[in-house]
């Protein structure tokens, strides 16, 4: 959310803003930007057992112009850097980024001294809102990440925290 250059409106309606935030949170449209292994877990989250549709986020749009959240799942290589930056710039405001998996957070298992090929983390390129650790993170972790993002938008968490029995 860091590149928000939106001028705040001159007359502000608190209730309307709350309604808009609730609407945005409940219908996040992710972009199909599966790069590597985490993409399969993202597909599994959208599939029948874990069902991301319950949270409104199953409409994966291929075009960045239609999306509001980019889920970066996979390692960003140096060759992919300009591509992913273009995609981020093409998304209209307001937009958010979820870094899914260790590679998107900090380069993951591919960081070694003298590495020449990858970018160590998506936050070196653009601001990230939610980090989901794991290699790959479970689909439940991605759902928790979406719920965290919804909480960030609306300032209240509508779904209960999972209790470990």
């Amino acid at each position, binding site marked *: 959310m860091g590149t928000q250059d939106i001028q705040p409106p001159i007359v502000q309606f608190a209730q309307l803003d709350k309604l808009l935030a609730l609407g945005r949170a409940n219908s996040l449209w992710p972009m199909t930007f599966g790069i590597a292994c985490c993409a399969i877990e993202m597909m599994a989250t959208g599939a029948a057992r874990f069902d991301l549709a319950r949270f409104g986020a199953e409409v994966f749009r291929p075009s960045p112009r239609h999306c509001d959240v980019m889920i970066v799942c996979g390692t960003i290589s*140096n*060759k992919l850097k300009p591509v992913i930056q273009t995609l981020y710039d093409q998304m209209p405001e307001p937009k958010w980024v979820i870094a899914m998996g260790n590679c998107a957070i900090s380069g993951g298992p591919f960081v070694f001294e003298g590495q020449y*090929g990858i970018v160590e983390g998506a936050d070196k390129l653009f601001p990230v809102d939610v980090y989901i650790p794991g290699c790959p993170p479970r689909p439940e972790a991605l759902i928790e990440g979406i719920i965290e993002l919804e909480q960030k938008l609306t300032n209240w968490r509508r779904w209960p925290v999972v209790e470990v029995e």
Partner: protein
Amino acid sequence: MQTDNLKHNLTLIQGVTLQDIAYSTKGYSLDVQAKAESVLQVVQEIDKAGFFIEAITGVDWLGEKAALKKEADDKAKAAAAAEAAEGEQQPSLPANESPVLQEDEMEIVYDFNHYTSFCRLTVRVRVPRSNPRLPTISSIYPGADWHERETHDFFGIKFIGHPNLIPLLLPEDSDFHPLLKDFKA
């Protein structure tokens, strides 16, 4: 049989040495050492015998010649010391005139396999490390096109006559060769 025919044809090419290998120890059955000039002839024979191309890769033998020379020097010294300890004679000067250290080499390894016969053959070619060049085989096996581009990416080996020797896996404008042993990021 096919492979016997092939082996016979390969021995006719100049500069080629063949070696039968036990498959259970190494995973391939025939080892062919060739020179850079005779690569095309070798691969043409292999193509006639109906093999398919599995992989092409390179190995950087930096420091191999120095290690071999050190081994030879150590052996010579040990032999001279043993000689001196045995007899009472004057120890003869070891015959290591320290020849000029030979240049290190890079090795290009081709793997071919057959769909029906049980024979994986490996062709090895050595080229000098400072000027690694050899002819392309992509006119015989179009699949070699990408393998050679990748080998060029990683080692800087030039394949003469290749239609499109631009980086395959590295960014288009890269000028470094990461799998060389003296590569620093």
